[in-house]
């Protein structure tokens, strides 16, 4: 395991240069560059915010940072799952040419998503400060810890999604549908407390993605550490997916090339 991570680190020049290239492709040739890519979550937040403000009479200052942060976290999680599906197929060229540790290719995918996420986090901080003043600064330690967990979980997920997609080529298609549904079953555009139905509540409490959203949102927007239950759940889920990713890497390292 350790030797494997060292091998991944040794070819860092390769995957780092690819990540940089991906980002340049993503942000280039638009007047607003990075800002352009933040327009989507921002527009979503404003629309949702306006609607919720009208219907539920929620104060806009509380609502907007909460919505934006939730959307930003959700975008990261979905891109780990969905783009992760393509991580090996996209890298077929390299896999057929050179025997690098396979985890390198999902790492390229997840780092791209992570950098995009971090840029969006800055936007959340700015928006929160603008609306609520600087009275409630982000809880830095919990936030950094949360981002580390986010990264590890995302990496494990991209590794697994890539493998599943090799076995079943329509995985991404199915996941898009699932995530459409999950979006409403995760407390992103509403607070968990608003849901009073027992059944929906049960689903929300057992949604494996919900702790990850809270993990970032609590320190970032509310300025407090996430609850121990939330942190524990996120760490446990990350460990389980990480373990599954490590096992499948060990099993698939020599086989994937035959199934591409």
């Amino acid at each position: 395991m350790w030797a494997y991570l060292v091998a991944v680190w040794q070819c860092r020049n390769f995957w780092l240069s690819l990540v940089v290239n991906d980002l340049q492709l993503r942000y280039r040739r638009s007047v607003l560059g990075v800002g352009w890519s933040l327009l989507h979550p921002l527009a979503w937040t404003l629309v949702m915010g306006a609607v919720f403000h009208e219907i539920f009479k929620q104060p806009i200052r509380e609502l907007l940072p909460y919505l934006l942060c939730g959307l930003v976290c959700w975008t990261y999680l979905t891109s780990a799952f969905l783009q992760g599906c393509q991580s090996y197929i996209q890298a077929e060229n390299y896999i057929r040419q050179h025997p690098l540790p396979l985890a390198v290719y999902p790492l390229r995918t997840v780092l791209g998503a992570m950098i995009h996420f971090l840029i969006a986090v800055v936007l959340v901080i700015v928006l929160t400060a603008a609306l609520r003043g600087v009275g409630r600064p982000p809880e830095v330690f919990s936030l950094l810890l949360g981002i580390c967990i986010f990264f590890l979980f995302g990496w494990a997920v991209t590794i697994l999604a890539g493998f599943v997609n090799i076995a079943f080529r329509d995985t991404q298609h199915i996941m898009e549908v699932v995530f459409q549904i999950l979006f409403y079953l995760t407390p992103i555009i509403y607070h968990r407390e608003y849901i009073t139905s027992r059944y929906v509540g049960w689903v929300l409490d057992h949604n494996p993605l919900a702790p990850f959203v809270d993990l970032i949102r609590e320190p970032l927007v509310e300025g407090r550490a996430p609850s121990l239950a939330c942190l524990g759940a996120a760490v446990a889920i990350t460990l389980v997916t990480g373990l599954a990713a490590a096992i499948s890497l060990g099993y698939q390292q020599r086989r994937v090339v035959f199934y591409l």
Partner: protein
Amino acid sequence: MASIELDRAGLTFRVRQQHQLTFKEYLLKGMFRQARNPLFEVRALQDVSLRIGDGERVGVLGSNGSGKSTLLRLLAGVYHPTSGRSTVEGKVSSLFELALGFEMEASGWKNIRFRGYLQGESREGIRRKASEIAEFSGLGDFLKIPARYYSAGMMVRLAFSTATAIEPEILLVDEVLGAGDLAFQQKAKQRLSEMMEQARILVVVSHDLKVLPQLCERGLWLDKGRVRADGPIADVIAAYVDQVGQPAAVAA
């Protein structure tokens, strides 16, 4: 010190008759799947035993589908033998299918970096060698445009320049040099022979029976995944031509 040793190595592919499996198909046709989309086995290599030592230049020949490319991928470590053993020592650099390892949206300069890093070159090493690689490729200003716009010959120029500049101990070349123009082929031959002066291994697959003797002194004839002949290149080519029964192939 570079060396290649295969001990009764075999490689069996398991492929599906039809396209790749989808989850939908898995659910809908679960019961009939085996009948409609069976797995079957392709024995790409069987019982290949081989020793290649320092300074040897080996030309691999054989008909299409005889396992030549599979052998090179096995040596590169991309495939692992499903039976037997393969031991390859030394820094390997490979030139396989043309588009392999090109990032199509990135410029030629960037692709020099990606290919260099892929083959284990350091950041400092690339910085030192990039201009030399660019010069050898002779691509000039084309290096500034995305690889998507390159012709096959231009890709070969760039790939070959990078693969040989990183000073590999083992160079594997699969049938791609033919895409370069005459001037570049001359340059490439020149460089290969320079490399060989430093006691390194070259394994090249080609159907060009005129070029092979210029590049190699040892020949390896693969037939249906087995080694049919292994020896001095002239003898192996003669045996191959004799068996195929087309002397015209030599004249061409």
